[in-house]
């Protein structure tokens, strides 16, 4: 498998898209840093902590990964070069895992690209951290796990679809669906218990009245929503900065999701007829 991984790394080294993604990541971080810096200069209270979650993972990282996975893995099908690997006698499981590790490595490189801006530029400009080191490590570990889950899901999709365009559509659409579901869950969880409304009493005066929110789900349903939010990468991404997310819970769900997507992808890929 090391040979397959090395061969993928050589392709990565030659990939313009790979460098473009790294530059994108760094440029986004730089733009945010400058924006925060000017806000700080205008008297707003800003700190480096908020931006630190961008070091770990962002929606843009996830979308870029979706595009990259589809194009990088899809190229092997498009050019037919996956046949070279099979004819050379590599078992399908090794081909699959080498691709997965390549995508995990890519995700890691994307995080490093952001850190390369964060530590030498963001920290000096915005000042040090206000949060504890423990919290920051948690954010970083959880963020890395979320990226790993995305990489694993996208690898499975790309390996199963055998077509760059199809996998590109499916990976980006799956990201959009996961994000939409996460946003919905967050909005449902954040529904207020009660709300106030203005009514006119019998004397013709306007008074405020507090009434229970009819749209708020029951506690058991909301509990289920919270579990879902903590399981799925898009959900974790949404609550990354809230102190509700447990790193252990995130780790367990990441391992489970990576395991499920890898087993599913590998099972389908093992049985595929390659042309």
């Amino acid at each position, binding site marked *: 498998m090391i040979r*397959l991984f090395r061969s993928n790394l050589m392709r990565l080294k*030659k990939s313009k898209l790979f460098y473009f993604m790294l530059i994108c990541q760094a440029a986004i971080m730089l733009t945010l840093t400058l924006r925060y810096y000017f806000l700080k200069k205008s008297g707003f209270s800003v700190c480096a902590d908020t931006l630190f979650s961008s070091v770990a993972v962002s929606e843009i990282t996830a979308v870029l990964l979706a595009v990259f996975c589809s194009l990088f893995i899809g190229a092997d099908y498009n*050019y037919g*070069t996956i*046949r070279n690997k099979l004819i*050379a*006698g590599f078992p399908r499981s090794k081909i699959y895992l080498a691709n997965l590790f390549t995508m995990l490595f890519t995700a890691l490189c994307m995080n490093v690209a952001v850190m390369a801006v964060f530590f030498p530029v963001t920290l000096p400009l915005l000042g040090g951290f206000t949060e504890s080191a423990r919290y920051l490590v948690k954010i970083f570990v959880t963020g890395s796990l979320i990226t790993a889950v995305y990489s694993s899901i996208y690898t499975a999709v790309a390996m199963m679809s055998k077509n760059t365009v199809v996998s590109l559509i499916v990976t980006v659409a799956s990201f959009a669906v996961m994000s939409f579901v996460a946003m919905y869950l967050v909005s449902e969880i954040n529904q207020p218990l009660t709300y106030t409304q203005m009514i006119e009493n019998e004397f013709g005066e306007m008074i405020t009245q507090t009434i229970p929110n009819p749209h708020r789900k029951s506690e058991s349903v909301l509990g289920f929503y919270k579990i879902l939010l903590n399981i799925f990468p898009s959900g974790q991404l949404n609550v990354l900065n809230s102190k509700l997310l447990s790193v252990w819970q995130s780790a367990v769900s990441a391992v489970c999701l990576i395991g499920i997507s890898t087993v599913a992808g590998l099972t389908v890929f093992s049985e595929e*007829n*390659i042309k």
Partner: protein
Amino acid sequence: MEYCLETDYLTKQYRNFRALNGLTMHVPRGAIYGLIGKNGAGKTTLIRIISGLQRPSGGSYFLYGEPYDGRGIYKARERVGGVVETPSIYANMSAYENLKQQFILLGKPSFGGIDELLKLVRLDDAGKKKAGHFSLGMKQRLGIALALAGDPDFIVLDEPVNGLDPQGIIEIRELILKLNREKNITFLVSSHILGELSRIATHYGFMHKGEILKEISASELAAVCRKCISVTVTPSPAFAPALDSLNLEYRIVGDDRAEVYGDADITGLVLALKSRGINLLRITEKDEDLESYYINLIGGGFND
């Protein structure tokens, strides 16, 4: 005889379509095995299966004696190279980079052999030109170079001259012959261009509707297809002595029929038969080539 590849009643079913239907074949070591069949006969399916791209629905095959589902198959595959349908090359890389990629994949300790391979397939002057801009012939030659990167004993080529211009066809033909003669590499070459195959093949497998109808060596085929006259007479024990008396090279096909090779003196033949009381019933000229042999075998038109 030692075989690189043996298949045993191989079948492949795609939903409602049976592409291979109990195919049995034998590719001897050192041979250039021409797999002949019309479009849709199942040639590419067979090649995909033996290359490990697809699994058979039934039957089995052996590469260097290793069953396809055995543990040793991955080791056996390291001795095989192949170009299935189109050459599998990265269009955004040069010929050198493509070979470098393949060398890494095969775990070669150095890239020393790349220049030699490029020279062998006459791509040494391709420079930094991206493979995506290569002509079809250049791509095909690069595909063969990639197949050769692992120093294989057995190379599978699926329709290697498809779409090539006459010069490209000659180059591929010469390369196959050179590799077979100089490096003793066994080839399995599928094609529906019979004239081209007949120039290189040492063995033939005639494929039709997912089956091998006949396997035959080139020398056996030459004997079968040799120009001759077929002589049909009234059955007589004096038939062979009559042919012997004329010093003819012949083959007795039945009690009443013989095939006479070479330029026979027809008048002399008729007189010799008549003098022995044998009546000549029919005399026909037989001049069969690979194409007519195949058509006779499948009992119909070639690309109908």
